[in-house]
């Protein structure tokens, strides 16, 4: 499903120097597989997800999803691919404040060609237990409710790959497990590959496959050796 080879990414520091952040020789996720990446803050977890999502472009290497190397796509091609094949759950929910819960889900469908399906949007919100909050605006919802809307939105376009960037980091402990269960169950039902990034060992322990980023990323290994 997801194959990464020799992926490198660096940033330019304020002094103009190139600072490497990622060097991942190999990373694969099978179809419908659920796995978690753990690592300390600033080790490049979010950058890796951005690159997989096609939001950023690597300096070198290949990212193939369902056999398609997205690093060869134009920006517009990556945008379209992201809308049609991937779902993204953010740490801070990132719901659009001017839109209701239902509209936030529909908005996720609007950017993929021919995917707007009001029935599915309602079904998804029903599945995440928010069928009574369809017309609620994010500011009137609890953090748990907001993250559930974010999950529904990420699943709106029937993605093949769901990227979840610390989805429980801003959720109270009571809701954390519910969110993780919701994501895992839905991915299982719809045979979606799941790559979740977290620094919570409680969450990580629930997955069969847990990859520490330090193990995947040669830059992190080098930094650790330096330290």
């Amino acid at each position, binding site marked *: 499903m997801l194959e990464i080879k020799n992926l490198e990414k660096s940033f330019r520091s304020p002094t103009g120097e190139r600072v490497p952040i990622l060097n991942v020789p190999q990373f694969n996720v099978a179809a419908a597989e659920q796995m978690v990446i753990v690592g300390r803050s600033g080790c490049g977890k*979010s*950058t890796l997800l*951005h690159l997989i*999502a096609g*939001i*950023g472009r690597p300096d070198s290497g290949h990212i193939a999803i369902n056999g398609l190397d997205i690093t060869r796509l134009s*920006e*517009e091609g990556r*945008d*379209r691919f*992201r*809308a*049609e094949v991937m779902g*993204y759950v*953010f740490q*801070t929910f*990132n719901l*659009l*404040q*001017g*839109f209701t819960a239902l*509209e936030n889900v*529909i*908005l*996720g*469908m*609007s*950017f*993929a060609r021919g995917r*707007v399906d009001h029935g599915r949007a309602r079904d998804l919100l029903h599945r995440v237990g928010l069928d009574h909050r369809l017309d609620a605006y994010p500011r009137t919802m609890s953090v748990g409710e907001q993250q559930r809307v974010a999950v529904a*939105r990420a699943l709106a*376009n029937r993605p093949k790959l769901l990227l979840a960037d610390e989805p429980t980091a801003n959720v109270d402990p009571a809701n954390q497990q519910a969110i993780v269960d919701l994501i895992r169950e839905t991915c299982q039902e719809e045979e979606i590959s799941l790559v979740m990034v977290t620094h919570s060992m409680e969450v990580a322990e629930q997955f069969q496959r847990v990859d520490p980023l330090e193990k995947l990323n040669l830059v992190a290994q080098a930094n650790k050796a330096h330290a």
Partner: protein
Amino acid sequence: MSIWQIAWRSIRQRALASSLTAFSMALGVLLVTAVLLVHGLITKSFTDNSNLGYDLIAGAKGGKLQLVLNTTFYLSQPVENLPYTFYQEFLTKEEQENELALMKPENRGELKDGTYAKNIDFAIPVNLGDTYQHFRIVGTLPKFFEVFKADNEVDPKYHFRHGRNFKVWDDEHGYFEAVIGSIVASETGLKVGDKIEAAHGGDPNDVHSDSPFIVVGILAPSGTPNDRAVFINMEGFYLMSGHAKVEENERPGADVSGSTISRRKPLPIKQREVTAILIRTHDPVFGRSLKNRVNEGNVAQIASPVYVIASLFEFIVKPIQTLLLVLTIMICLVSGISILVSIYNSMNDRKREIAIMRALGARRVTVMGIVLGESIILSVGGGILGWMGAHLLLFSASPFVEAQTGVQIGLFELAPLPRWLEVEIPEVIINNSWIGQFCSIELVIIPGLLLLAVLVGFLPAYTAYRTDVAQALSSSP
């Protein structure tokens, strides 16, 4: 969810800032539309009234503009008069016999066809100079209200709301009958049967109290300067003190009690003068030749009111119109810049929102389109509000404007195209009853606003286009 729906949601989310921005645009467009409408009304008022049913005006030698303004619009002052015999040159012998039927043959002399009588539809004399309060008094013949026809050339142009037309001679009122315009009636409260006394030469201390005229008719509003005039029988006008031409062997100031004037007898021809003559010719070719013949002589001049007013507009009004147009463009630009500033300032707060949409799969051009859409909605929405506001404002002022200018304003009456633009459009379009009514400068505003919205929305839209998604997503919400 379309780009427009997303843009509208975004506008709603920033309701206060968006309302203020749209309001600024609305004010700009209101101002522009109001200026164009008022200017159009003034133009319409002048051009319509310069074509009242006669094509030429004959008057004493002098400025043509003064002659037209004085005779047609009752503005300015008459300078000199023409001998009555000059007026007779426009009448056939038969017409002269009819008009002078009450005069003794020895007072009217030998009558013959006038030099210019051929090819003339009608010639109407007018005598000006006196006033009633601040309204002009026009001494003329009853045919003034009979020969002018409405556009269909069947119905009379002037109708009486009350009473009737004045007569040359009436057994009850003699020569002293008057008809007043609708505005004169409403402002003075004069009714049929009331007396009016004219102020000689407009001097309130020199009132013709010996020659009161009886109001026998009140005109219906016509939207012409005639609504603001008092029409009196010309025979009565001649019999007012100081209106008879002083003969060489007579002392100045001869009046009705003098030896030469009787209140029951028409003034002899040799003592008569006219201020101007309103003429309609059979065809324009004859009109031009008549104009040349008269203007070459040393008695009178002939002016074409339509041409004179067109020249006035060309040399005086057109520069004002250009200035208004420049002001209009500047107002629109200021409003446009305020939209630019408003949207541009909001872009910093919206970077994350844009990044989220991009992360959900929105393309760069899509987010650019959303921001442009916002700009268009604010500009066009504000513009339409301002446009409607201007029309409502002028419509509510309609009774006042109508009273002042005679021009009626419909709620959705559009400002006419400027002349320079009108001549560029084929006549087939202008004269088309359906399309022609939409040939308005106001309908240039809406596409102009769209263009402006695209222009001013482009900078913030480009900022949205350039948003670094990864960086914006990494920043704190």
